[in-house]
């Protein structure tokens, strides 16, 4: 019972982080129709910004600065690297995104060196929950993720801006004809996604106080997996996929025999889902048009 509970909580909090990143992926993919490969690396930059601003000693300032810095970075990347390619082939956009990801990683390595930096943002400590010892930060992560998901869903459903986003994702051309500023909407999407990435970076630091230039690479890919599993473009889907993936990872690490194959298992799930149900669990079916 105790083992089940602690595995569950570990899985949920890890899943929460994946969900947070997947939300960013899924929104950008849904609206800008591109896979932002550099999304994971924005997490890493967020981590480094927190590392630098923690010199002030105030975690709240550090978090605020990190969110602002990531939003600026995300929007800048969109303007410089992605916007000129709007209307070009998806292949070109994807390769550029990979280039940006590479660029951010090498920049971070040049500035901060390749050895990981250790930084403790805030030590929440642990509590006993039904006999299991649980990191409070895990519960915080989970709670914040749920709140963010609810807020985002409400924002998209009930505000003008949110509905404009839906319109752009449904049909960009028609949305433009209806007077929606498509470029503006895409910029806002990137801003929201990058802010979420900064939060994900924070959660990573709460979990493990270390940041290196490759911090975001693997979580980025895994979170994309989560987004695909849940159905790309769907916000509850990203949440569902993130939690599922977090649980799989946590359970897999628990079983000694398969623990070394954890990454392989997660990627196999991705391939199977894409083969059997390319639109994920909660995604909409799309038909390719001429």
């Amino acid at each position, binding site marked *: 019972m105790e083992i089940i509970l602690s595995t569950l909580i570990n899985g949920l909090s890890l899943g929460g982080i994946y969900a947070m990143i997947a939300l960013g992926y899924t929104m950008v993919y849904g609206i800008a129709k591109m896979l932002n490969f550099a999304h994971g690396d924005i997490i890493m930059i967020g981590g480094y910004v927190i590392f630098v601003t923690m010199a002030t000693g105030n975690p709240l300032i550090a978090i605020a600065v990190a969110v602002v810095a990531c939003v600026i970075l995300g929007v800048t990347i969109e303007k410089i690297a992605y916007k000129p390619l709007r209307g*070009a082939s998806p292949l070109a956009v994807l390769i550029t995104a990979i*280039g940006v990801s*590479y660029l951010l990683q090498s920049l971070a390595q040049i500035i901060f060196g390749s050895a990981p930096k250790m930084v403790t943002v805030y030590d929440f400590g642990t509590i006993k929950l039904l006999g299991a010892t649980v990191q409070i930060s895990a519960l915080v992560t989970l709670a914040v993720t749920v709140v963010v998901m609810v807020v985002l869903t409400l924002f998209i459903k009930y505000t003008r801006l949110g509905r404009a986003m839906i319109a752009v994702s449904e049909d960009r051309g028609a949305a433009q004809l209806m007077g929606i500023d498509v470029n503006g909407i895409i910029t806002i999407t990137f801003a929201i996604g990058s802010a979420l990435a900064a939060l994900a970076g924070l959660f990573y630091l709460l979990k493990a106080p270390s940041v290196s230039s490759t911090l975001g690479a693997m979580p980025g890919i895994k979170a994309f997996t989560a987004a695909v599993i849940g159905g790309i473009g769907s916000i509850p889907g990203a949440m569902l996929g993130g939690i599922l993936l977090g649980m799989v990872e946590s359970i897999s690490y628990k079983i000694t025999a398969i623990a070394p*194959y954890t990454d392989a298992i997660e990627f196999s799930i*991705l391939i199977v889902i894409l083969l059997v149900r390319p639109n994920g669990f909660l995604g909409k079916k799309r038909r390719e048009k001429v």
Partner: protein
Amino acid sequence: MTLKKLKLRHYLNYMVIGTVTAVLAGMVLTGYKFDNSLLFLLEKIAISIILAVSLSLVVGFLGELSLGHAGFMCVGAYLGGKIAALLVPTLGNGPLTFLIALLAGGGAAAVCGIIIGIPALRLRGDYLAIVTLAFGEIVKSLFQNSSDETFGGSLGLNTPRYDKNYLFIFAFVLVLLTLMVVQNLMRSKHGRAITAIRDNEIAARATGTNVTKYKLLAFTLSAAFAGIAGVLYSYSNYTVQSMKFGYNYSIEILVMVVLGGMGSINGSIIAAALITFLNTKLATILTGDLAVLQNLFYALILIAIVIYNNAPALKGFRDKYNLSAFADKIRKSRNDPGHVKDDKAKWDVVPTKIEMNEILSVDLTPQDSSVTWEKGGPK
């Protein structure tokens, strides 16, 4: 331009690579000893060229992004290396063992190519890229965690290294083989079908192209050559360690293809040789955290080239100032009336009737009256 000239032009890259190989091989066979650094560099360049040309088949010609090319190479390196290690005690470390290893490694990678090619038929673009990436990571992880007896696990697989004085000759013969297969394929009707799928899959399907068949063909062939490059890698090293074959290596190959110009085989060859050469040279010059500068430049070059080549806003600029436009200008000034405008399929939109007329009415009238016209057209 006569047909004969056209053919010569098509064979020039074989001739250049073939001549260089033959000269070096001749020197080695007459007992000349090269430095290790040169021999290792040549082996690495050959491996890079095979990888780049084979990836170019999928990325440049089929228009799909594969981020798991290193994964196919990994399969080839491990299986080819294992077969070689098993055969060396009985057959010796000679060309026969090498050939068997090549077939085994290339074949195994080709099978993986088919397995990955099947989702390729259902998925497009971003999803496919992610599937290939996932494949690469899975392969890496499986070999990394294999038991010590099978594939060496975390220590890596010990493989027989081929005599370093001769390996580069085999390596360049394999480069020529790769070129022959890929170039001949691309110049055949099958190659036209593959580029047709890239330019407009639905239109290709509508005109009766067997999209399934050609996608699978391109994927499998590309994987097979990546596998061959892998076997070559296992032969040029004492150990095969799966860590090498990660996502970063796949990206490095992709950089070669993009830098060389997508869909240009010669471009891929030059870029592969250049990047490998620079990587090796820079490794001894740039030390410390400066070594990352190299990656930074690659990233910047990648972004710049892709934006320059694809941004719709830069189209006018590109058409005015690219290499072939420059060449056209020179040709015009040389009064070459026989020049027919190169009509590669690079329309971003399907041409309208008016544009079609423009394209079809290529100006063949002589610009200089001094050119004499005889029966059957200009000479």
